[in-house]
């Protein structure tokens, strides 16, 4: 039972990272019907932007939570701007080409970011500065760290904010309209290019937050860290039902849980395998995902 509760906490913290990254996949898929394979690498950039922000801000440290917030905001803004650039330079020019063209471009952007990362940041792992001094609590043998709690709490707050934005604001409404029917959204006077850019920016800053949060917990970062996390977050988005925001969160949490439970009760060797087993199972039995409604009929 003790192992179970311990893994529950670990799963929640890992799962909320997957959920944050999965949200970007699902939102971009919603507006462009594109699996943005470069998204995992944007998450990697988020960790590096956070790393440099933490080093630059180091002399001006105040208290842990303000430092963390500053580093996170800096990384989210930097990743948002990067995404704006990627969308404008790589995806917009091929928007009217076939979906396969866009997919190949996305893989190209992913390889480019990974290689650039190795050139600019160096291929060796870097150690993310400690923003929050670790404290641990024990409760019936279950260990809680304050770092894990921060990860879970911040991820939760970001998801609530995203939800408020998408369901309570005029721009959020426009985003849902674009994702349902692009042409009809244009007819409403919505500047759909701007909404698509904004979707990239929001999705990428959530990935950036994920990159910083994961580094608070597990401080080793490297230019290829986005590959596996990106794939798993993609599986999470498909599992929840791609295009569905709640689905991405649900998928992320399930995947995180599944992974740590396999590691806890079975063998760590198989922790990566479970994600892909889930992907195969979902594609066989419920291709639309848990909350997906199947192909939306476009008129």
């Amino acid at each position: 039972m003790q192992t179970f509760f311990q893994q529950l906490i670990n799963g929640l913290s890992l799962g909320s990272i997957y959920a944050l990254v999965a949200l970007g996949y699902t939102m971009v898929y919603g507006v462009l019907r594109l699996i943005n394979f470069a998204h995992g690498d944007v998450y990697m950039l988020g960790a590096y932007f956070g790393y440099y922000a933490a080093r630059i801000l180091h002399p001006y440290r105040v208290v842990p939570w303000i430092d963390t917030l500053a580093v996170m905001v800096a990384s989210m803004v930097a990743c948002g701007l990067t995404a704006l650039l990627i969308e404008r330079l790589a995806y917009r020019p091929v928007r009217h080409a076939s979906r396969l063209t866009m997919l190949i471009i996305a893989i190209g952007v992913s390889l480019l970011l990974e290689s650039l990362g190795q050139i600019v940041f160096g291929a060796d792992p870097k150690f993310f500065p400690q923003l929050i001094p670790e404290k641990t609590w024990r409760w019936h043998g279950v260990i809680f760290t304050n770092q894990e709690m921060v990860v879970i709490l911040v991820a939760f707050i970001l998801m609530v904010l995203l939800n408020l934005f998408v369901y309570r604001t005029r721009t959020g409404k426009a985003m849902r309209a674009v994702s349902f029917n692009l042409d009809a959204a244009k007819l409403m006077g919505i500047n759909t290019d701007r909404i698509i850019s904004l979707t990239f920016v929001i999705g990428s800053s959530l990935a950036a937050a994920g990159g910083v949060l994961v580094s608070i917990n597990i401080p080793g970062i490297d230019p290829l860290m986005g590959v596996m996390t990106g794939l798993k977050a993609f599986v999470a988005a498909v599992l929840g039902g791609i295009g569905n925001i709640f689905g991405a969160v649900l998928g992320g949490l399930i995947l995180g849980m599944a992974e740590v439970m396999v590691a806890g009760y079975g063998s760590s060797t198989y922790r990566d395998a479970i994600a892909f087993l889930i992907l195969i199972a979902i594609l066989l039995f419920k291709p639309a995902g848990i909350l997906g409604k199947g192909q939306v009929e476009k008129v």
Partner: protein
Amino acid sequence: MLSLKGVSTRYGAIQALSDVSLEVAQGGIATLIGANGAGKSTTLRSIMGLAHPHSGDVLFEGKRLNRVPTHRIAALGISLVPEGRAVFANLTVAENLELGGYLQKDRNKLKRDMDHVYEVFPRLKERLAQMAGTLSGGEQQMLAIGRAIMARPRLLLLDEPSLGLAPLMVHVIFDAIARINAEGTTILLVEQNANLALHRSQHAYVLETGRIIMHGPSSVLAQDPRVKEAYLGE
């Protein structure tokens, strides 16, 4: 108010419109009739910038619309009710209407415009919190028209508003169209139901395989033997 001058539009290798010219005068209802695949929807899409003519001009109040992005054309005062309605099925009726008034930033005016829609279509008011996808076909058509007039357009383009509706519902919709027109909105109506369209409009154009083959006052065309034979089934 609106004029098309020698507009030709292609979809890939298919010539959808060839040298289409037409005029819509302010204040009236003009109609474009023709068989399935004649290019009626393409004409409306070419006006709205959803299809791009490779030659000819689309002019609205003297301003050239070619190459203007669709959302700007909407802001100039033209609304299109697309074929098949294209309501946002996963949004509520109220949200659909609010999106129709997307460019209206004054909340009070937005509220007033919504009240106006409820006056024209009282049925929508009972359905506000419902997802648009759960409405009946007729109600979806009401919503699509209501959403379009939320933008207070000066020109309303309607693509096959009678399509798939029961005769009674067709009357409700066409009475609403007449009312919207009487309130000052100019209308260009595209219809397969030529009989209905000719009776509800002042001026008509007949489109056949991408070309305008005839035009004139609707009452005259309704008596024309060729129109009678080809489109009125007499």
